[in-house]
């Protein structure tokens, strides 16, 4: 049994079916890139994994635990969902940092709120908060932002904001980190610094699912590439195979269009 099993996910918005029977699996430490044209359902798939959308059919299993099953309402209760979504982290296309907090506070806020629910929080308050602070600082130095701890989001560049968002997602130690087109809202000269951070994470065996339009990056960093079109997985496999020798006609067309640009 793979670490993550996605089985038969389907999702419609009104009469438009966005996802049709999506099946895939992911091993611990593996990096998957999802490519495909806009509207192919990539983002919706990530949003389903993070419980921002509720699939109409199918199930999601992490580490042998069924965290979502469309047939079983018990897996969809608000209180359950809140805990289970912590299996996944999500980095958004447009960062969504909290503007009123410093860079460091952005990273530590969620962990602090979660810590308050711990039974031993009152006794060990200082130690716990100190630990969260230290971890936040460590993560920010990992993404190269040690000198920006006290800045507010509007004071730093888009690339730096996205690196803060990555540190924020890592703060809760998710099993699987998802990226939704992390560089699409950035100037070309800023994408490099973000991709470098993601590549570092891949080198540390972080389990990741990356939706991206950066084909070269997808090819370099991923252990496996999934090509989606029209709400289905058309083709998946080793990057060299999918990019170098695509089997499906639709994959060939898509990649040909990219090469022209």
């Amino acid at each position, binding site marked *: 049994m793979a670490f993550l099993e996605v089985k038969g996910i389907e999702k419609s918005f009104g009469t438009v079916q966005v996802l049709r029977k999506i099946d895939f699996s992911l091993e611990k430490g593996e990096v998957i890139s999802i490519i495909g044209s806009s509207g192919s359902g990539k983002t919706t798939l990530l949003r389903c994994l*993070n*419980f*921002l959308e509720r699939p109409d059919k199918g199930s999601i299993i992490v580490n042998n635990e069924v965290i979502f099953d469309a047939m079983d309402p018990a897996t969809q209760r608000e209180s359950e969902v*809140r*805990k289970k*979504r*912590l299996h*996944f*982290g*999500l980095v*958004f296309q*447009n960062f*969504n*940092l*909290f*503007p*009123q*907090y410093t860079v460091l506070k952005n990273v530590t*806020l*969620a962990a602090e*709120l*979660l810590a308050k629910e711990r039974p031993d929080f009152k006794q060990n308050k200082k130690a716990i908060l100190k630990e969260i602070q230290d971890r936040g600082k460590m993560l920010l130095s990992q993404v190269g932002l040690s000198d920006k701890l006290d800045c*507010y*989001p*509007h004071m730093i560049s888009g690339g730096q904001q996205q690196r803060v968002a990555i540190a*924020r*997602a890592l703060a*809760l130690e998710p099993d699987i980190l998802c990226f939704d087109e992390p560089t699409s809202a950035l100037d070309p000269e800023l994408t490099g610094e973000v991709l470098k951070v993601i590549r570092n994470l891949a080198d540390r065996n972080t389990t990741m699912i990356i939706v991206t339009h950066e084909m070269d990056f997808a090819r370099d960093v991923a252990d496996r590439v999934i090509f989606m079109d029209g709400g289905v997985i058309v083709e998946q496999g080793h990057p060299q195979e999918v990019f170098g020798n695509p089997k499906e006609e639709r994959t060939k067309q898509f990649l040909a269009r990219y090469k022209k640009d």
Partner: protein
Amino acid sequence: MVIAFGSMSRFRPLRWVVRTFVWIIRGTPLMLQLIVIFFGPGLLNMPFSWPSGESGRFVAATVAFIINYACYFSEIYRGGIESIPVGQYEAGQVLGMKKGQIFFHVTLLQVIKRIVPPIGNEVITLVKDTSLARIIANKEIIMMAGEYTNKGLIWPLFATGIYFLVFGGVLTVLLDWVEKKLSYFRV
């Protein structure tokens, strides 16, 4: 605030009732509401009545102002809350926060920052609208000045104007201060 949440409720009947109430209060003159609230209970033979004398008039006027302005304020709150990008809520959700935590720790301060200017407008209008309380014979400031006019003096009326100006000025300074306090971040 309660009215604002009511008008955003996912429970349709509640939302419908609250929005109709807001429509009625905002759609009718404040002066009419003052009269209805003060004379209504007596004319309709309700068991309830306002305390007699000056204090009753004052309480009735206060109640009318509160109801009226609560409706205007609720719409400002609603506008402020709904103007926060959905990504802020989603970022909170993905980080495992509860709804209440997202509201208090993520969106509230952003909402406050956005609604300070329109709230300022309403507060200053409220100060000036108090002069409407004369309709139910509350001794408000212009009415008192008016009594002097009957005696042939115009200056007390000017004095009231200056009083309102000073009051408005103080509020403006106060609101500017709040805005400045919140200018350390951008939404």
